């Protein structure tokens, strides 16, 4: 019983973190119908940006409550820079190209970014230690132990998602995004510049991924160059599971993925060594039998 509760909490935290990445997938896919494979690397780059800020920009011994905002700022800055660069130089020239071209490019961008960080970031060939926030303190709920960083993730992720939801629903740019997602040509007739909308979408996704990267780092206290790819696949699965294009769906899907991974690692056949496998099995089943996801309808970004 205690184990179950503990695994549910672990799954919840993982789900919240994956959800922040999934939002980027779902927004970009909703608008340009591109599986931005490299979005996971935007997350990864953000994590390394935060790590860099912690090691090089901040004096040693900076308390975590001062370090956290600086690290978040650095992570978001790096993530946004990476996302803007990839949109501008890798994807934009391919609009209207052969349908496999953007996907293969995304794959190339993903590999390139992973390798650039692995080769050029000092020490990145092995996992790097990430500072822990809240001095490692935790909340005890009966038999269940929740790190304060986990609580932070579970609180912040839904807040950010809600903020995004409101932004897309209420703001002028959000309206332009929804219009472009539904009918790009007619959106242009309204004076909406599709390039700007797409770029804005990448930027928003990157901001969320950068924030998610810091939350991920302080919770798991270890990062490596593979976190982007792995969690990116999970996040993509979550976005599809929830119904691609849907913000609430992405969070819901991420919650499912988090729970499936942590529960399968505990209870399913094969144990922790096969927890990834169960997520992939779930992914295949979802894509086959409910590609529109839980909340999906076959059209663009909706809240």
């Amino acid at each position: 019983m205690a184990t179950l509760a503990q695994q549910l909490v672990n799954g919840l935290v993982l789900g919240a973190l994956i959800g922040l990445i999934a939002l980027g997938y779902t927004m970009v896919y909703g608008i340009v119908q591109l599986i931005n494979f490299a979005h996971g690397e935007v997350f990864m780059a953000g994590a390394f940006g935060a790590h860099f800020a912690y090691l090089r920009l901040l004096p040693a011994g900076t308390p975590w409550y001062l370090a956290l905002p600086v690290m978040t700022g650095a992570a978001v800055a790096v993530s946004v820079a990476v996302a803007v660069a990839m949109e501008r130089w890798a994807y934009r020239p391919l609009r209207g190209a052969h349908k496999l071209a953007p996907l293969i490019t995304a794959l190339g961008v993903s590999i390139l970014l992973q390798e650039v960080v692995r080769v050029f970031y000092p020490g990145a060939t092995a996992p790097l230690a990430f500072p822990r926030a809240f001095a490692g303190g935790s909340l005890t709920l009966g038999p269940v132990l929740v790190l304060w960083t986990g609580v932070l993730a579970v609180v912040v992720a839904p807040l950010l998602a809600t903020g995004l939801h409101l932004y897309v629903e209420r703001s002028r740019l959000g309206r332009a995004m929804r219009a472009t997602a539904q009918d790009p040509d007619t959106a242009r007739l309204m004076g909406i510049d599709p390039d700007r909308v797409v770029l804005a979408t990448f930027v928003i996704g990157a901001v969320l991924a950068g924030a998610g990267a810091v939350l991920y780092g302080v919770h798991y206290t270890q990062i490596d160059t593979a976190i982007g790819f792995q969690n990116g696949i999970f996040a993509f699965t979550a976005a599809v599971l929830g119904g691609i294009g849907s913000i609430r769906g992405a969070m819901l899907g991420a919650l499912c993925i988090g729970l499936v991974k942590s529960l399968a690692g505990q209870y399913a056949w094969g144990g922790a060594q096969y927890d990834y496998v169960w997520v992939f099995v779930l992914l295949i089943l979802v894509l086959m039998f409910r590609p529109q996801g839980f909340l999906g309808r076959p059209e663009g970004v909706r809240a």
Partner: protein
Amino acid sequence: MTSTDTGSTTGVRGPVTRARRSARSVLSVRSVRRVPGAVLVLAGALSPWASVVLPGGAYPDLATLHLFDAPHLVTGFRLHLVLLGLAALLPRAARPAGAGVLIIAFVHTAFLAALGAVSFGGPVALAGGALLVWQGRREPAPRWPLPGRAVVWPALAAAFAGLLWLVSATLTAGGQSRATNPHGGAEFLAFLGFAVALLGILSAYGVLAWLSALAERHRTFSVAVLLGCAMLLPLTGAGTGYWMTVASTIGVYAATAIGLNIVVGLAGLLDLGYVAFLGIGAFTAANLAHTVPFPVAALAGAVAAGLLGVVVGAPTLRVRGDYLAIVTLAFGEIFFRAAQNDLGGLTGGANSIPGIPPITLFGQAFDRPVGALPAGFLYYALTVLMVAGAMAVLANLKHSRTGRAWLAISADEDVARAMGVHTGRAKILAFLVGATLAGLAGAVFAHKLGTVGYESFDFSESVTLLAAVILGGMGTVPGAVVGASLLFVLPEKLREFSDYRLMLFGLALILIMRLRPKGLVSS
């Protein structure tokens, strides 16, 4: 460079007059612009290439760079520079020759600079190459008429012999390993520059197009000669056990890439977990190696992979495009995790499966030398046959009813269905055929290596295979072989850059999609 003669011996008017015109233009005022570039290249080639480090420095072996023996003995890359400098005097050859000079000179200048040596010839040759590229004219290549039978066979035989030389020289360029030759990587890259320039010059004069049209018309003869030439490779400089092993490894990946080309290039189904088929073939054969003879093990590997292909292909009935790519990626990851964790004790997990015996047929173990031929020749011959067979399968399928169905599906699936194509059956068939080829290759792979472990089948291998198909040209028959050869030779040759291998692949994928989405060999 003797294409003018070829034109006049065939005695057909159009190209001859054009050739005469270009012969005259060698002397025209405009053409004089090429001369400074060519002179600079020649001057660069004949000047000394390094000043300080050699020969008493840290790398006495670098004497093989042919640095100080000029002008008496101009060999190696400097000979190539001289040849290209002379070739650049031909009007159409200036641009490709200049590009080759740039590559060669850049590689060696950079290499010497990294050693702290100042190269005198390098900058001069670089300037000459740049001048040639800048001044050279880009014109459509002339078209040559196809000659009668008397010329065809010798022409094709000569072409394939030239190809054999090029392959052998490329393979052996730069030597075996870093240990014996510290600048092997640079020599290899420089040779690639020379090869690119040669092919570029031939292509600028329409010779390549002429030859490929010729080969297309006399296909049976060409295939026979090509196969014969391939079998002659052991008699060239590449005829050592080491190069035979390298070549047969390339063969295994080439066969796998051809299988992938069926799935991606013909049917337009992006598969991101393709290496799993190679893996299942390898593991199946490895498990059966001690109990059954090789042909049975190979068959079992092919069948197992084919079955997995059907399983992976089944979702294509419901899933399309991007989503399908993700499904195949998921299958690939599941396979990798299962192999890593030694599922059912079949893969050895982290210990891999060691001690797989070499293939033995008629009492002859494949890893032993046969007569005067080097060890590894039998594996090489086997993979050549396998690649040839795979190419035949691809070529036949491409022009068959099924191939047309695949093309229709990859263009627009709904339209294909509306035209009466059984899209589901065709898509699963693509996976079945492709996977079977990969499984067969996997069985050879297992026996050849003697050890099979899960690390050989991770995602980056799938990406490399995909890159090979895309680089070579999706859907083309020789494309996958060209692509696989390049992508699997390069890491072998450029070990000093092995850290950058995947990075460069990623960059290459992006650049190819942007600059040349149809690949090097476009149909």
